[in-house]
């Protein structure tokens, strides 16, 4: 092989780069976080029920928050009726964080894990952080 050393070196660098996630994770394998529901308000609830079911909220909560924001700011519509007929105020601070007052264990744990940096906290919930 003409200049075989360089070709093998290039192939080795390629393998190192492609397999780097495997190499980096050899030392540490952090488990996935569990969103904590252990807050005084939730514990005091007789019927533990969110504005929508948990699976839907896991996938789509950001879209719901975006819709709520647009509804409130642009249309002045502040009332949200859930599937069970319960009426909630469309408010991150007043509704969501009222129950989920443990932002670090609930919101941030998953956001940090997935590398998401929501800009909610630039305005909301600034006192606690």
């Amino acid at each position: 092989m003409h200049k075989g050393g360089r070709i093998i070196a290039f192939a080795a660098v390629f393998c190192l780069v492609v397999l780097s996630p495997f190499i980096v994770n050899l030392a540490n394998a952090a488990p996935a976080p569990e969103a904590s529901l252990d807050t005084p308000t939730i514990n005091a609830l007789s019927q533990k029920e969110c504005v929508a079911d948990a699976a839907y909220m896991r996938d789509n909560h950001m879209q719901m928050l975006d819709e709520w924001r647009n509804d409130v700011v642009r249309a002045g519509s502040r009332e949200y009726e859930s599937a069970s007929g319960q009426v909630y105020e469309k408010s991150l601070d007043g509704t969501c964080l009222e129950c989920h007052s443990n932002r670090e264990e609930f919101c941030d744990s998953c956001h940090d894990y997935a590398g998401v940096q929501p800009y909610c906290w630039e305005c909301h919930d600034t006192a606690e952080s």
Partner: protein
Amino acid sequence: MKIAVPLALTLALAGIAWAGIQLLGLYGLFGIVVPYVALASFVVGFVYRLVKWGRSAVPFRIPTTCGQQKSLPWVKQNKIENPASTAGVVGRMLMEVLFFRSLFRNTKTEKHGANLGVGSAKWLWFGALVFHWSMLVVVLRHLRFFLEPVPAPLAALEGFDSLLQVGLPVLYITDLTIVCALTFLFVRRVVLPRVRSLSLPNDFFPLFLLLGVVAAGVAMRYFVRVDVEAVKEMAMGLVTLHPVVVDGVGTIFYVHLFLACALVAYFPWSKLMHAGGVVLSPTRNMANNSRSVRHVNPWSRDLPVHTYAEYEEEFKDKMVKVGLPLDAE
């Protein structure tokens, strides 16, 4: 046909993933086996192609690479286009890999009245550049699923990519640019008659595969959302060699993953291998120093030297007999 077959193949691949998950529930196959097989095909295939190219014959150094070669002191050399040193070669290679220098030189021959004229044609260069840089950012962004904790530079890149803060989850600029660039590269092959005639199914197939992966990814992020935490858990399982299947992740994720796996597995065996081939291009990776350095053919056999003096000595008598002149006299 050139377009229909690769399109049908791409749709079939997406359909296989959809049916495998939705109808048959083969989560382990599509979530664990297929990604590992695809990665193995990618790494082994890539190295195999490199070694295969490495073992082939190397041409003589090419002196005519669109620039004045090193010559007499008063002739100005083009040090990037026609380098005589290793540093120059590295510079030329970087220009090629990062900015597609030779595509930038793309020209188009047109009739201007009665005359033929050569004009510059930059659209292909621009489309290719936008696609490849977007692709790089997209691939780097996906590393957030494979690293825990997410390194700060990756978070910064993601923040920069979602600078516009449109919608929630925020729109990535590169998602927009990669779709536009791929669409342009496809439309170009269909609309321009000459390019269309040159295009083969194996030109269209990677384009469709890439568009499929991007479309599934975009759909998953902005329209049919999935549980991102569960996705990361699966991705981390794969790279820590403790693969798991997490319930409740939507089918669209498996379609995206399977198309991406197909692309990765197909990569080394296709034209996409230009990624590795660029560094082995003879007009790009060899310094033009033939005037100053003697290059011996590397696969010449090491024959013993038989000089004319020795030859004459050996056949002296016969040469004298037929009246040939001898140097020795």
